């Protein structure tokens, strides 16, 4: 019985970890590769959740298809936010204090706006696969976790191929390390960063769809993810997508075991413990350079 519980907790943790990886992908790009501390990222994810919610409720479209349809809009939103950030802070080297305050303000304003429009009720979506689960050898795989997990993995593979096999992708990986070298290759670092930041916000659209498939959403839920996102990002090693996946799965499993055996109200503390431990013992993370 105890063993069954453990196996189920580990499976649920791995599935949850795939979702966490999708949530963290954007931060891995913006914080890990571009050095932009976008703490407003969870707010963009929640925004994605609510857009998916509106379309799903009014037209009955599948949440994941909706999020893929609005990807371009999120990309443009990200590019605009980066442009504002660049012109106001990065250009003058003021990103550390005022840039952080800017993103914090953005996080807060988005949350309050969603609160004013949608109120504090929990919102959820309808899809044929929510509610049922695949049973395999006595172990349950709930579809509402399995579907986001698989789509998240596909997203990661696509991102990794883009980053390592295209010119722009390689330029993104290079931009925070050596912008001068990029300039010598006749590439504008600002343009590369704008593209990369757009992509990082675009992943928030998908992550938002996953979030609202997995659990009902209220505007303030984003805050719970800030600690998790950065814990995963730091633990995985800044800017390493494979590291992000490993760290996300690890955190998912630890959290799942914690909430199975100690109660779900303790789960948020796990990520902070891991974050502090990583910062104290190995700040460069698992797969960090």
């Amino acid at each position, binding site marked *: 019985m105890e063993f069954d519980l453990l196996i189920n907790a580990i499976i649920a943790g791995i599935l949850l970890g795939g979702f966490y990886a999708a949530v963290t992908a954007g931060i891995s790009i913006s*914080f890990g590769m571009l050095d932009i*501390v976008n*703490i407003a990222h969870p707010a963009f994810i929640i925004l994605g959740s609510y857009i998916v919610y509106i379309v799903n409720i009014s037209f009955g479209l599948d949440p994941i298809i909706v999020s893929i349809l609005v990807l371009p809009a999120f990309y443009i939103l990200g590019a605009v936010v980066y442009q*504002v950030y660049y012109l*106001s*802070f990065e250009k003058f080297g*003021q990103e*550390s*204090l*005022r840039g*952080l*305050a*800017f993103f*914090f*303000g*953005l996080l*807060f*304003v988005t*949350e*309050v*706006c969603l*609160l*004013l429009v949608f109120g504090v009720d929990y919102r959820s979506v309808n899809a044929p696969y929510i509610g049922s689960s695949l049973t395999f050898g006595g172990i349950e795989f709930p579809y509402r976790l399995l579907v986001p997990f698989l789509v998240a993995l596909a997203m990661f593979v696509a991102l990794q191929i883009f980053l390592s096999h295209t010119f722009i992708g390689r330029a993104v990986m290079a931009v925070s390390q050596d912008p001068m070298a990029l300039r010598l290759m006749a590439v504008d670092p600002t343009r590369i960063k704008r593209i990369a930041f757009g992509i990082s916000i675009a992943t928030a659209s998908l992550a938002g769809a996953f979030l609202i498939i997995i659990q009902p959403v209220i505007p*303030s839920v984003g*805050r*719970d993810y*800030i*600690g998790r996102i*950065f*814990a995963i990002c*730091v633990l995985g090693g800044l800017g390493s997508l494979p590291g992000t996946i490993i760290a996300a799965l690890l955190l998912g499993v630890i959290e799942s075991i914690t909430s199975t055996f100690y*109660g779900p*109200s*303790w789960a*948020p*503390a796990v*990520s*902070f*413990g891991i*974050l*502090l431990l990583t*910062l*104290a013992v190995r*700040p460069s993370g698992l797969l960090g350079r």
Partner: protein
Amino acid sequence: MRTPVFILLEIVIGAALYLLFRRYGNDYLFFAGYTVLQFIVLATAWNILGGYCGYVNFGTAGFFALGAYSSVFFYTLAQSLEDVVPESLQAPLKAILPLPVPVLIIIGGIVAGLIGLGTGYLTLRLRGVFFAIATLALAVVLQTIMVNWEFVGGSRGAYVIPPNAVPVFGPYIQYLFVLMSILVIIALTAARLIERSRLGYGFATIRDDELAAEASGVPTLKLKLIATVVSGALMGMAGAPFPFYIGYVEPDSAFNLSYAVNAIAMPMIGGTTSWVGPLIGAILLGTLQQIATVTISSALNLLIVGLLLIGFVIVAPSGIIGLWQSWTRKKTS
């Protein structure tokens, strides 16, 4: 201005305000005034680390709640002494409990300062953003602990019933108002002293170029830890009287994100380089919010704070003080 003169001036202004409110106002003025004073303390405390050293603390709500919950702890302890404490300890505890609010303020400051020291020690050796992220996560974890800690109310919250009146001051809110005024005096004096001391210059070197400071022998880690402890302790002190002010404490209200946003927005809007900035920002924004809460709605006034924060960091990076300085410079030249 010499420091004793400055303190005297603060006391005169505080006393004048108190007497004015008492003579012409009602209890509501004291309630609203208390909130504004509380924000002055929080903004000044945030600015000691954020403005002087350039290290962003997103965990104001966490430090504030530490103060509030340490008060709740001692209050509940006094209420349930017979049930939770072994008999041998009951007599000495009975003699000192319930603790007066000024003592609780000091305890709140110590608790928050120690947590600040611990977090700072683990994260301040790294790049500044790691500290910022850690403070953000710290607030979430402290909230998780309080939600799970039944003794201080858990997720249901705890009632703290203040006495109706106290000798000399009359209504209890006036007593709290005076205590918070004293905290404002302490915070402003501390910030002003730091600014003009070796410590302040050390902080400024960290803000401007930490690597150069370290290379020229400034003990940066030690200075950052001092700033974190002073700043965290002041926030905890501001939180300690909160349960007596509000009467009912639950995790969502004590850890409300609006404290963190306000504590950042106020110095940013006022100007971060001197103690005057947070003071101006807190008075303006605090009063504005009090008016907006009454006339419009409390959700909308938070939106105003957020938008003002974004607007000011983009358009006027040096805050109102910066605007004022450039305006007077233009006038003279």
